[in-house]
């Protein structure tokens, strides 16, 4: 138990103290979710955050060189700098109607859970701290990051971390769901598109004639399924996306497989990438096709130990709020902080659903105040020195 009694009691009282802000949090969530923000086109959400920061008196709020929304609340002493960040982009198609419905118990709409909810909390943090009369000793830097998902490859947060002039001592990433989520380590991961293009014209292959790209890709998938994935270190290949063809009667000349390789060991990911590249090379030769693996997203294994006081204090904060910690790993921008030796965690705000089409995304309203209280509680714990060291 690392959280002092002096800290635990105020943390327990936070959800009640936050009640007058419930509609403001929901209002921010709703308005953010209605702004389309595909990766690379997050400007409207960036402006929304900057407006909120400026309204709250963060007079130096601005975009950084790459375009992240950045605001800073100066601490009384400024002896530490805490980074609180949420990614602003989502995977909702910009042409899709960004309709948000607020029911009595939930908010429904594309991208509300990933990550309009997290962005809403970052937008509201200055107002939340002011409402609670909390003035931190530490500097608090708020970032709404762009270029996070997919081919964005965390470029926004990486650029911020590379360019921010002051040392950052702790990081807190905020995601919409799930409440209880506690990520404090990063696993090795690679995301890639495998594109298979059948060659048209020229001399036909001597071995095989050109086939449907779908059939060739199927051959590749079968070969990938044969790649050994050890239980220890935990290693898995997930094939999550498949695209090919436009009509029933025309064999496609192009097919795409989206896949993810995850492991607790960087070497396993490197090995699997090499093996898939070899499969692509061989299949291309045999099937008169061009198969290429494009690895566009990488994270390296690492993290802070379970015994780090940031982790134990966060668990204390969660439990004092009746939140059961869930330490399963989910990819987030925390990996970029950990890669720079910044002790960092990812927290979820509420329960809900994401990316289960055709079912709509949603977040539950009732847990939100506990989720926000948890973020504030962790900031208080860091500020009080309860998270320093192991």
């Amino acid at each position, binding site marked *: 138990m690392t959280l002092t009694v002096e800290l635990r009691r105020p943390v327990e009282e936070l959800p009640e103290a936050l009640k007058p802000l419930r*509609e403001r949090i929901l*209002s921010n969530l709703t*308005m953010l979710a209605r702004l389309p923000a595909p990766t690379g086109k997050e400007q409207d959400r960036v402006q929304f955050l900057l407006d909120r920061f400026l309204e709250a008196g963060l007079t130096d709020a601005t975009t950084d060189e790459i375009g992240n929304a950045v605001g800073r609340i100066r601490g009384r002493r400024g002896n530490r700098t805490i980074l609180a960040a949420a990614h602003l982009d989502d995977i909702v198609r910009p042409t899709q109607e960004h309709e948000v419905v607020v029911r009595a118990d939930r908010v429904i709409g594309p991208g509300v859970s990933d990550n309009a909810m997290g962005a809403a909390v970052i937008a509201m943090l200055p107002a939340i701290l002011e409402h609670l009369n909390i003035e931190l000793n530490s500097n608090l830097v708020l970032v709404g990051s762009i270029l996070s998902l997919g081919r964005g490859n965390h470029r926004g947060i990486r650029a911020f971390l590379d360019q921010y002039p002051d040392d950052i001592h702790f990081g807190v990433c905020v995601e919409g769901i799930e409440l209880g989520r506690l990520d404090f380590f990063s696993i090795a991961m690679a995301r890639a598109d495998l594109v298979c293009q059948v060659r048209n014209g020229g001399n036909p292959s001597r071995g095989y004639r050109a086939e449907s790209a779908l059939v060739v890709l199927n051959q590749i998938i079968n070969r990938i399924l044969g790649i050994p994935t050890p239980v220890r270190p935990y290693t898995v290949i997930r094939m999550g996306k498949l695209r090919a063809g436009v009509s029933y009667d025309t064999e496609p000349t192009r097919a795409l497989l989206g896949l993810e390789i995850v492991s607790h060991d960087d070497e396993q990911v490197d090995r699997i990438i090499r093996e898939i590249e070899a499969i692509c090379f061989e299949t291309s030769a045999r099937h008169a096709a061009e198969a290429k693996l494009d690895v566009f997203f990488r994270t390296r294994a690492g993290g802070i130990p379970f015994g780090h006081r940031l982790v134990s204090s966060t668990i204390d904060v969660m439990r004092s709020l009746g939140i059961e910690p869930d330490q399963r790993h989910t990819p987030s921008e925390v990996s970029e902080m950990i890669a720079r030796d910044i002790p960092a965690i990812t927290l979820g705000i509420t329960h809900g659903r994401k990316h289960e089409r055709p079912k709509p995304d949603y977040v539950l309203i009732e847990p939100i105040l506990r989720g926000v209280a948890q973020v504030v509680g962790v900031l208080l714990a860091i500020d009080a020195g309860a998270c320093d060291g192991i």
Partner: protein
Amino acid sequence: MVSEDWLQRRTYHHTNFWDIRWLLQQKERQGLRISLCLPTYNEEKTIGQEIVIFKAELMDRFPLLDEIAVIDSGSTDKTCQIAAEFGADVYIASEHLAEYGVYRGKGENLWKALYLLQGDILVYVDTDIANIHPRFVYGLVGPLLANPEVHYVKAFYDRPIAHSGQLRPTGGGRVTEILIRPLFSLFYPELTAILQPLSGEYAGRRSILEQIPYPVGYGVETAMLIDIYQRLGMEAFAQTDLDRRVHRNQDTVALGRMAFGVARVFFSRLRRDGKIQYDGELPTLMRQFEFADGNYRLRECTIEEIERPPMIELEAYRRKFYPETVASASEAQAPAADTA
């Protein structure tokens, strides 16, 4: 005549009033209360976000609004439950002023809002708007707080229609362009300067709203414009561009019925104002045809457009808002009774 000068002076953009702190200062300086009325009937899909956004931005952050009230026509979905959950006052229209009869329609709800709500300024906002934003209120309140000569402010938009999950760039306003604008051009040409006379969002001072009759149905917006115009002239009006309004489209059959109701209200004003003459009352039966199973089929619909009297004429209203006038009237009658 349509005055370009009026258009220049009285046409605003909502960004003219983005500084809510300034609006709040004006409101407090003038000692005004502002009420938001949301008329509803089965709007569970949109009512939650409207109330959350208006309450958060215009009550909790800046107390520009003194009350947010839903006046409901008997919704059978969860409209009222959701509205109450997020802090709106919820009134079932049929449960109030029932001694004056009970009708169903948007105009009925707006009329009863005058009695139920406290504000010196009332803001009416439809509840089918998918892209609701605080500008839908502060853009309408702004001209009233900035200029004491303005009594009534109307919204206008570039209105895309939500359709099959995609957005089309523009549309809406068909009844306006095909019916209202030609009629205004013929009989009330100055009112053609009101760019979207049928828009569902407007704000007015109680002092004028209580003086005019309210049709209970489709014609309420048209009637308000003509009746305020007749009493106060164009200088009482202003209009604000609220940019985009995303809402569900109505089919042509529904718009036809709406046009019928609006036309009845319009013609009753023309007769009242001596602009046309006709005997008896206009028919209430709207006839439309549909093609089904290889045949044309007649569909008849009765649209009455009942009108509520000016609220100031109701004793219950005067007793609530002007008790001194009711008391003095009683006192004035008392000696006569004694004498008798």
